[in-house]
């Protein structure tokens, strides 16, 4: 079973994302910010990460750059999931190594579409 780490400081978003991803057949773990997510990845690298941008302690873009510096650009697949919807933000995330990008709000169909595009479905 493929694994996805949901990184978001909102408990509600994590809960909704978990339900959708589990429905798609993923085993889901959660982290509340980038620092927690990085610690998680050091112990067990997931197949995919659903990543919020604006979080306390370490935000999504800082986490992404740290993740790619440590583990390379290929794995895990990272899907940003954020309210940041300007082209500049999207470009910054893609340059930093995000494989796909979701602009909130999202639904099950968008999650499925994006995880399929990054090759996890």
């Amino acid at each position, binding site marked *: 079973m493929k694994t996805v780490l949901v990184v978001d400081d909102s408990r509600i978003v994590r809960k909704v994302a978990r339900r959708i991803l589990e429905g798609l057949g993923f085993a889901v773990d959660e982290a509340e910010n980038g620092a927690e997510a990085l610690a998680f990845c050091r112990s067990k690298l997931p197949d995919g990460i659903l990543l919020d941008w604006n979080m306390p302690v370490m935000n999504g873009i800082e986490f992404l750059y740290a993740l790619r510096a440590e583990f390379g650009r290929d794995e895990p697949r990272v899907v940003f999931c954020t309210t940041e919807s300007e082209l500049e933000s999207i470009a910054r995330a893609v340059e930093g190594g995000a494989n796909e990008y979701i602009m909130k709000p*999202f639904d099950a169909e968008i999650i499925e579409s*994006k995880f399929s595009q990054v090759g996890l479905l």
Partner: protein
Amino acid sequence: MLWGSGDSMNAASFSALAEFLQNRSGIVLTPDKMYLVETRLAPLMRREGCADLNALVAKVKSALSGPIADEVVELMTTNETLFFRDGKPFEHLRNEVLPRLAAARGPRGTIRVWSAACSTGQEPYSVAMTAKEIAPALGGCRVEILATDLSRDVLRRAAAGRFSQFEVQRGLPIALLMKYFQKDGSEWVLKEDVRSMVSFREWNLLHPPTPLGRFDVVLVRNVLIYFDAPTKARVLDNIAAVLAKDGVLYLGGAETVLGVSTRFVPVDGARSAYALA
């Protein structure tokens, strides 16, 4: 009342609506689609001040070619769509069909594509972006896309090339969004070089398409499922008449020509793709 909801219609009205829709659009309305009728026509019923859906159908019957009848057809035939729907046909176009046709037509040639039930435009624009992505492999051969639909309303939306944030996230890879769209407020607008590859025209699939010219690729996906067997055969015969000898027809994932028409045969190794027999 047959279906128990306050807005439901009686059996006579349902039959009349079904007959009207089949004559106008070829769509077969079976009783299990009652929820669809209620959902789509209730707002029009209220706007027109009709007491119930029976009264709305009576209005349609009294002026079969009037504006309300047109609106009913539009509401009942507008289908949800997404960019690069089903994926495979676009991979097949990109990897095999467009390069092969470009080689055959030459650097000054044109590949003509018909998106025959284009709805809000995601399909023809997906073809346009596919062609843009492999432009060097096409060696100067132009790709020209005609997008048609029965509904004027969706054609207007499609031609504008404007999509909501929700729409651009369904099927469209982020790299293509960044490359071919510009953000305008809360909407995303296709750049002119993609939009200009597609022209739009109102067209009823039941009519012989000869006036539209010949095509190298025809996409008529997720439309035949709404037609009965004789109508499916008629539409496929019409398409066969305008498809180039080396052209390709794409149907929806749940559709087939087998048992419906002898004019087409499946293309080896490509799902939903058909060539002339």
